[in-house]
């Protein structure tokens, strides 16, 4: 478990954050300027904070009180940068081997052929980074970090510099990383869909402080951390069948979901992110609607917002679904905890990037 506690003052901005990152992927989530990259750089040792303590198990990377400030090259981290930062004068193979060469000989390490196969970079090995596409570079950067025998992998918005097509090309590799590699990952992102697909734990940051931390289902539904427009739920469901009309049938604790073609094989378990303001509530079971998904649950909580809105949390067979409605409708419907309620979700409101492809049992 990585424990981070940092305080650092910049001109006009103070970082004061404390969180812990258990095994799996911990996503540092927030807008630009919220302090995400500062935290990652402090963990990597590229930035020395005014005060702080960073430990992983019994291993201390930084403790300003005890005057321990490990140099970056002694921290044994695999840092995946936003711009890749591959060495232009080395081939892909040499880039991949670079970190492994400096790692202690007895360090537990990944097998080069396995990593090359996992990332699909075999045909690129003898090329130089200048001849690679953005997505290829980023896959090599992942491999380079992984092969340096790291005790922790850091990724600073590794997809931000890529277009949508490249993003959906790389994201599955991070999902494989999470599910197949035991090294914990600290992942910086400002994208809620990346959080929904990847995170085991989310640390939401705002203005240099931790606004909310916990499992993604909890943090993404937290209006305080996400803002009213960003709040969302994560439903876990299993792919039952792909139907001929392009609709995929999924089955989860909340009931049956019908979504536009999901890129996952039948039987796979996936995560679906549903944005709170895309959910419509109804007391009676609606009839003759175009929306494909009508889920039934009970009201678990009702929280009026500062404006005219209210956030309603529904319990759906153990899963939580948040809906953003107006206070006026909540009053008119007489919504109160314990009452049954139906939630209506348009199938097309769930964007493809909000659907995670595979979901490892280890972290389920």
């Amino acid at each position, binding site marked *: 478990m990585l424990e981070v506690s940092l305080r650092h003052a910049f001109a006009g901005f103070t970082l004061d954050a404390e969180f812990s990152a258990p095994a799996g992927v911990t996503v540092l989530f927030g807008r630009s300027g919220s302090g995400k990259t500062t935290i990652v750089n402090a963990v990597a040792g590229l930035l020395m904070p005014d005060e702080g303590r960073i430990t992983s198990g019994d291993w201390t990377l930084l403790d300003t009180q005890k005057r321990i400030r490990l140099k970056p090259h002694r921290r044994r*981290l695999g840092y995946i940068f936003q711009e890749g930062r591959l060495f232009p004068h080395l081939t892909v193979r040499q880039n991949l081997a670079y970190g492994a060469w400096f790692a202690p000989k007895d360090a537990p390490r990944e097998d080069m052929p396995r990593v090359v196969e996992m990332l699909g970079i075999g045909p690129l090995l003898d090329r130089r980074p200048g001849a690679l596409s953005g997505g290829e570079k980023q896959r090599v950067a992942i491999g380079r970090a992984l092969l340096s025998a790291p005790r922790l992998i850091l990724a600073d918005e590794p997809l931000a510099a890529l277009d949508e097509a490249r993003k959906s090309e790389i994201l599955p590799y991070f999902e494989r990383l999470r599910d197949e590699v035991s090294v914990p990952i600290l992942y910086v992102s400002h994208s809620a869909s990346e959080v929904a697909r990847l995170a085991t734990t989310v640390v939401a940051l705002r203005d240099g402080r931790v606004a909310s931390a916990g499992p993604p289902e909890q943090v993404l539904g937290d209006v305080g951390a996400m803002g009213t427009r960003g709040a969302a739920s994560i439903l876990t469901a299993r792919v039952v069948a792909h139907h001929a009309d392009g609709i995929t049938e999924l089955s989860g604790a909340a009931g049956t979901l019908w979504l536009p073609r999901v890129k996952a094989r039948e039987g796979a378990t996936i995560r679906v992110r549903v944005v709170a303001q895309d959910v419509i509530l109804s007391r009676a079971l609606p009839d003759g609607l175009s929306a494909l998904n009508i889920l039934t649950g009970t009201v678990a909580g009702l929280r009026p917002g500062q404006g005219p809105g209210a956030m309603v949390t529904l319990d759906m067979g153990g899963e939580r679904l948040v809906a953003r409605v107006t206070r006026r409708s909540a009053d008119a419907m007489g919504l109160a905890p314990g009452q049954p309620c139906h939630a209506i979700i348009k199938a097309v409101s769930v964007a493809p990037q909000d659907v995670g492809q595979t979901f490892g049992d280890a972290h389920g």
Partner: protein
Amino acid sequence: MSDWLSPAEWEAVQLSLRVAFWATLFSLPVGVTVAYALARWRFPGRELLNIVVHLPLIMPPVVTGYLLLLTFGTQGPVGGFLDRTLGFTFAFRWTGAALAAGVMAFPFMVRAVRLSIEAVDPKLEQAASTLGASRGWIFLTVTLPLILPGIIAGTVLTFAKGMGEFGATITFVSNIPGQTQTIPLAIDLALETPGGEALAARLAVLSIVLAATALALSEWISRRVAARVGGT
């Protein structure tokens, strides 16, 4: 060679090559270090160092030669010390010519290397540090290969400048055949000697050929290295 150049002239050519070789050899590590310090480090006296390095480029060469004479002459503080303790003399020796050539060429070396260091993205060096490389290893495996074109350019410029240095050399170590009379000094002497025009012309042509060859060679090497580093 001897039908074309007399033994004395051939001696001047060999001496020039030797002077330029040693001047370059010593300028290289010092020049790369100073260039690195100027490009990357912030320290008190950085501006002063920058000015001192560039002075030989701006000052009249005679002044540089005079200052070398004051410092490294047998009566000078450094020259006197070396003479007494190690028996090593600069004054009126080819070593003095090499020193003068090295000092005069030093700004060329530093400028070329510094420009190439400033072109290296420090983020690559950061990436290397997160991968476990210490500062020394980062320099050897990342910085040095990336600045190689600049180092080659600086080396060739230094060598060419060392071959052709005149003012500081003649002031510091005089014009002694076989000892300090490099090609430019031999040309100067030939021009002052009645009937020496043909010799001066031959040596001048030789100078041009050597300089042009050096430049072409460095261009070729730089292009090859840049293509490697450029990554295509």
